[in-house]
């Protein structure tokens, strides 16, 4: 009997979704007082979800319709696969923060975000089964670079968004109820500010690289570098938002609350570029990236 990869993949996908959802719930339980066991569950489930995410991504790039089975990275070029890559990178950084800085609290905001995006991917974007992989126009290395750098950029911005929210919450609790359990559980303000900034810096570099790779692909495929279609225009607006963030931080010393608000607003602009533009301002960008 032929190996039905999609059945296996579906099972793994739902397992991953459940793991991320439970990890998010345990992260919140940990924040509100169920220390110890909840923390271990949150971390364990994040690791399991991440392993399942890796497996789903691996299955996505494998083409089982031909023999022998081939690995084709161009099968990733679609919104659903983009969300899988985006969540994979986000959870990877979350696990790194948990290990390097003993910083499990990042899951409080990241795991629900990852769960929501994957749910969106499953219900709205839907798997593509390598729909675009067979067309010459999409088999471009520039497009692949664009795809990967975008996923890394969005992931970095998502984490900086989570850290920004945590900064604002911690700052609020610091002023109102500094001895409360949640205030004690959240990491120090300096660490949150510094890590958020570093992730924005990484995200911004990846984002710039993705805009450049996308423009080169656009030129190769359609003869125009930039055409101001809605997706491009909103990418430019998001890029400007982060340019303003970096300059205000470097030159005007904007840190703390103002800086955290800017990362939150920047990520919302990115999220609108990714999801909102596809619905409210449709353009030529067929796979929503």
């Amino acid at each position: 009997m032929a190996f039905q990869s999609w059945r296996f993949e579906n099972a793994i996908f739902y397992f991953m979704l459940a793991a991320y959802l439970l990890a998010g719930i345990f992260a919140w339980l940990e924040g509100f007082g169920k220390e110890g066991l909840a923390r271990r569950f949150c971390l364990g489930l994040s690791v399991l979800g991440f392993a399942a995410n890796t497996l789903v991504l691996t299955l996505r790039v494998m083409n089982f319709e031909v023999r022998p089975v081939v690995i084709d990275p161009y099968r990733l070029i679609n919104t659903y696969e983009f969300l899988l890559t985006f969540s994979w990178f986000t959870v990877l950084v979350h696990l790194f923060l948990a290990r390097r800085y003993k910083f499990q609290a990042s899951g409080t905001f990241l795991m629900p975000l990852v769960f929501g995006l994957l749910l969106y991917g499953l219900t709205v974007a839907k798997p593509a089964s390598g729909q675009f992989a067979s067309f010459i126009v999409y088999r471009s290395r520039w497009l692949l670079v664009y795809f990967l750098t975008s996923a890394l950029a969005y992931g970095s911005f998502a984490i900086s968004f989570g850290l920004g929210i945590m900064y604002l919450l911690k700052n609020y609790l610091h002023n109102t109820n500094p001895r409360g359990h949640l205030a004690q559980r959240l990491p120090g303000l300096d660490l949150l500010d510094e890590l958020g900034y570093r992730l924005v810096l990484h995200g911004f570099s990846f984002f710039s690289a993705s805009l450049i790779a996308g423009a080169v692909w656009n030129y190769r495929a359609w003869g125009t570098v930039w055409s101001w279609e809605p997706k491009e225009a909103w990418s430019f607006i998001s890029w400007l938002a982060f340019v303003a963030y970096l300059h205000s931080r470097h030159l005007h010393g904007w840190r703390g609350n103002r800086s955290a608000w800017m990362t939150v607003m920047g990520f919302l602009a990115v999220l609108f570029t990714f999801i909102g533009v596809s619905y409210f301002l449709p353009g030529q960008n067929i796979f929503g990236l």
Partner: protein
Amino acid sequence: MGDQTNNRTMPAIWRIFASMRLGLVLMFLLAGAATLGVLLPLGISSQGEVFGQIVQAIGLNRVFSTWWFKGIALLLAVNILVCLVYRIRAVIYVLRFPRMTVGSMDRLKYYETFFAREKAEEIAGQTTQVLLANRYRVLQSGDEEQVLIYADKQRFAIVGPVLAHIGALVLFAGILWSSSSSMQGTFITGTQEDPFKLATLGGRLTDQEKTLSLKAVDVKLISPASGVRDLKGTLELYQNGQMEKTGEISYGVPFINSNANFHLLYNVPTVLISTNNNGQQDVKLIRPTENETSILVPNSNPPMYISFSILRPGTSPQVTYTVVEYTPSPNPGAAVHEMRAGEQVQLINYPAFSFSLVGYEDALKLRFTEDKGIGLVLAGALILLLGMCVSLFLHYRKVWVNLIPDCEQVQVMVGGYTSRHRVNFSSEFSGLVEEIKS
């Protein structure tokens, strides 16, 4: 950026352009204008006469090509250039003449002091060894009263932002050059024909030096069963009547000849308007390059035209139409009506004539581009990325050590500074102090 220079000697205009605050304001303006450009539909100019005229005058229906949008971008470029001039001077100065001392070391974020019983020279030697082992560049000066040690690491990190801004300027220059020197033309499939009949299509493009003509032959769908039109064909390019080049062209893969590229595009929405004159039917197209068209009402006296324009290109099939009499110039006060797909309109004075909006049809287009600025655009992009990588992976760290002999002991003051990666530097600084102490 320009704050480091002497403000009194700077002319007012330079002072304004050297301000980073202006840069931030211009970026916000640019982002706001881009938001307007995306959110306002092209058909907004037809929403009422006075409002429409205001929109037309300001160019809100074509923000990205207006003089004021380009003006904001140009002001931002000038702002970056002026800031860069001062920044480069400051960076060169910092690299050539590092600041050996700081005013009050105890006000630094990273600062520790302790007393040691060894001689100042011994401590200086040991400190230098520690800093060198940690890959710091070490400079030493001093007199009988104190020994000053300055050390820094990855100082070229400060070049990163400069490179990134140079890249942005080169990119901007490339875009300007592209828009002023490039040539673009399109060939679109004929009326009502199967859009895949590009084989029958020929065209001519003329620039100052040469006359190009081309013919596309044997255009085929690669995978006809799929929903996506994946085309492939052969293109023949003639220059001054002589065949210059022939080669394959497919959807997304251009046919390249010297600097000129030919791109095959398919998903070009073209609006179809059906007309009926006494039972004789015809179809009129509004091509994407035109965005509007007009039809002469048959047998109308005085001549009557109906002009159509697409309301929101690429979205729902909807056009606006105006019925105007040419006596001899069009009537500017004519009412504008909206027409949706399937809607039929009959003229009161000419009941035999009617028209309706059929909807959109995908047309096939062959685009010709000759972009002379593309090299500069790519070079700018690469410099921009390089600058970002330098900023990202290097971070400038400075350490000052002051040794002040005090009776039998020596007071050791250690201070550190970094603008980024504070969490990591905090532990690195503590490690350095421990090593110096030991």
